């Protein structure tokens, strides 16, 4: 029985692969034509490279968290392009390192919510019935609680720190992911090729992960990109009110919060982290918009 299945799928692979590649190429061509989206992509790539390579030229212990009280509030200079903060730490090193934290949590939250959301949403959409109803009503309940409130409650109950932040923001995003995956699955599961796979006796799990989800990737990808952007804003917000990343880790929102009292005297303290947040979130939003346009089958010309 199982032998038969494998052969059927292996036969299908070359055709499938070829089609997929060409489709990706079409999407990329359409995406490339969108200038704003390309700007976003370039910006985000730079940010990503900075985040990944930061340890090569910044020493966390020495440059990021070591305080030099005698060097407090130094304005922008060659040695410290963005100046130093209230503990005499170089703001540039902290902002660059902060990119790592924001990206990590942003991507982490999407990974968590995507994982849970895909399983729940795909199974709910595919099996339907009472199971679908139970899952989706639970999601509705979670969705009814304002996102930031939910995150604040979870972080306040469990304490700050990156792990709890991931959990809090992840839970917040799960219902949204679940709904998007479910709606895609609902439209796909009546397609002829799914019927064909079923007729061949392919297992449900295999159908969901091999045949349905890859074809539903478009809206999920758009949602994921926008979620990273939203999450970065949420982390900054939670850290700003003191519930996010724990000191001395350099988080952009926390940096702004710490500089708040000195805003009248040393305004440059908030420039760098503020601009970093704006650039990252804008670039991700532009990419998300671009992807949405590129993936929309109605826009095929």
């Amino acid at each position: 029985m199982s032998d038969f299945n494998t052969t059927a799928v292996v036969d299908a692979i070359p055709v499938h692969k070829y089609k997929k590649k060409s489709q990706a190429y079409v999407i990329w061509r359409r995406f490339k034509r969108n200038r704003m989206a390309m700007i976003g992509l370039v910006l985000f790539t730079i940010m990503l490279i900075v985040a990944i390579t930061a340890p090569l030229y910044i020493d966390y212990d020495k440059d990021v968290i070591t305080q030099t009280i005698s060097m407090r509030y130094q304005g922008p200079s060659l040695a410290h392009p963005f100046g130093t903060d209230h503990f005499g730490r170089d703001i540039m090193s902290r902002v660059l390192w902060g990119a790592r934290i924001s990206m990590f949590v942003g991507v982490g939250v999407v990974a968590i919510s995507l994982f849970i959301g895909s399983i729940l949403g795909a199974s709910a959409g595919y099996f339907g019935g009472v199971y679908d109803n139970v899952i989706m009503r639970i999601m509705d309940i979670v969705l009814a609680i304002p996102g930031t409130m939910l995150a604040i409650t979870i972080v306040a109950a469990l304490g700050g720190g990156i792990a709890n932040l991931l959990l809090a923001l992840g839970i917040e995003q799960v219902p949204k992911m679940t709904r998007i995956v479910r709606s895609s699955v609902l439209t796909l599961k009546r397609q002829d090729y799914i019927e064909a796979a079923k007729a061949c006796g392919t297992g449900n799990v295999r159908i969901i992960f091999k045949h349905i989800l890859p074809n539903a990737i478009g809206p999920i990808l758009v949602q994921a990109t926008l979620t990273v952007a939203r999450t970065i804003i949420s982390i900054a917000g939670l850290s700003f009110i003191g519930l996010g990343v724990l000191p001395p880790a350099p988080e952009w929102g926390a940096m702004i919060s710490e500089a708040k009292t000195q805003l009248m005297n040393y305004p440059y303290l908030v420039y760098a982290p503020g601009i970093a947040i704006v650039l990252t979130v804008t670039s991700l939003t532009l990419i998300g918009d671009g992807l949405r346009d590129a993936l929309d089958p109605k826009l095929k010309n």
Partner: protein
Amino acid sequence: MKKRFLSVLGMAMSAVMLFSACGGSGTSSNTGGSTSEPTNKAVVTTSGGGAEATGTTDKDTLVFVMNAEPTSMEPGATSTGDSYPRMTNIQIYETLLRQKMGDKTTLEPLLCDSYEFSEDGLHINFAIKQGVKFHNGDEMTVDDVAYSINKALAMPNVQELADMIEDAEVIDDTHVQVNLKYAYSPVLNILVNPAFSIISQKYYEQCQADGTNFGRNPMGTGAYKFVSWQNGANIKLAANENWHKGDVAIKNVEFRFMADATTAAIALESGDSDIFYGVDSADLPRLRENPDINVLSVQSAGFYFIALNTDGPNEALKNDKVRKAINMAVNRQEIIDGGQDGVGWVTECPITPGIFGYQEDFHADPYDVEAAKALLAEAGYPDGLTIQMKTPESSYYSRPAQVIQEELRQIGITVDLQVMERGAFNTDVGNRDYESIYFWIGSSFPDADNIVYKLFHSQFAHSGLATNMACINSPEADELVEKGRQELDPDARMEIYKQLSELNNENAWYIPILTSTNTLCARNYVNNAYGDSAAYYYIADWSFNRE
């Protein structure tokens, strides 16, 4: 694409405008509110904007801004060290004695004419001032006085302050005697605390009977009568025309609450307010340079410290070598510079500078990173260790705590710093759920006993009043504290507090760090405004400059 960008920009701009519009209307409606107050019909001034500060010829409302709101104005219902209800309560109520204006070490009679100690120091006989009237017109009697003191003694918050006072009893029509359990030299200072405010027995019992919340409808004999309390916004008071000490110069007082210190500082600069209590150290230099503002800074009545929980979940902190290493690893001046913008005094003994018992010549183990590391290795932690530290979320705590975190990292101790919401922090402290904390303790009156009794006595180590935050259970410390409490000779007491400071340094239970300032910022047309380490600001002493 371009169009969309422009529309986003437009939206952002309109949002900015919306915010600024809100700010503007907020201010003007506030000013409008104070002019339309029925009690100051005679004047129209404040609406012109307090900004024309010097022309105060007909100004009659003092706007007093503070960061937080009292939880209740019932005497003794709040912590006796809490300065927010104190600032409002001492205007409305009066105590038997008060601090002399500008000299907190001298007390002068307020609701009494004179007082006399018995020879054994166990009884104080107060001759109560006659003809004093409550705001509702009733005359204050000796029964009210004895009732108020006995009622205060029954309040849980007053226990740690006044457990040496037995009771108060009426002697005759003009005298009330306060009885002590044992002779206690600073007892008069305790009676100055607003917890011992004199209230009307009749009015209080009437409130109880008809369910009125006395704490929100206060009534006393003070210079100002309560007018209104708007939650989260303000408390308004008006002058008491029948005050037993004559007329007050400032006719109306509005206590306004602004949680954000920077906003409140700007309100003072723009002339929206006249007095501001609770300035952030970041705004201080700017306010000092402003010729229209007097910055009245005095040393605060309390100090900041690290308490290491010697009976907590972290085994390492039970080891006195680890604690001593931490004691050597802190550089107090650096904490003041980095955490408090250089505003503060190094504090090395567990007693606030400036109060009786402070050890001027006492020095804790000096800052020495290498010695601290060696000590840590000796204690069995050559590779360092992790300790958790909790602190409330205000920048007064979290910023110095971050410098401490960094300094301890230098000797290999990783501090897991948890900056917590104030309520959650208090709960954890009450439950002893912490390894160490960075916190503050204040004295309600200028005597060391008020602090060391709370900090060191084993009685408070595990009881509901969680003031022995290091959870010390040391017979030696108990004995010293009790001796200091009952000794009457000042020199002998100084010696006892010296020994106690040394004992604390040897064991490093508490690591005193710094003493901050208590700062009152006043527009310069407020005459006689003064700084006070414990926020005893009697507005009746003040006036507006009419020139």
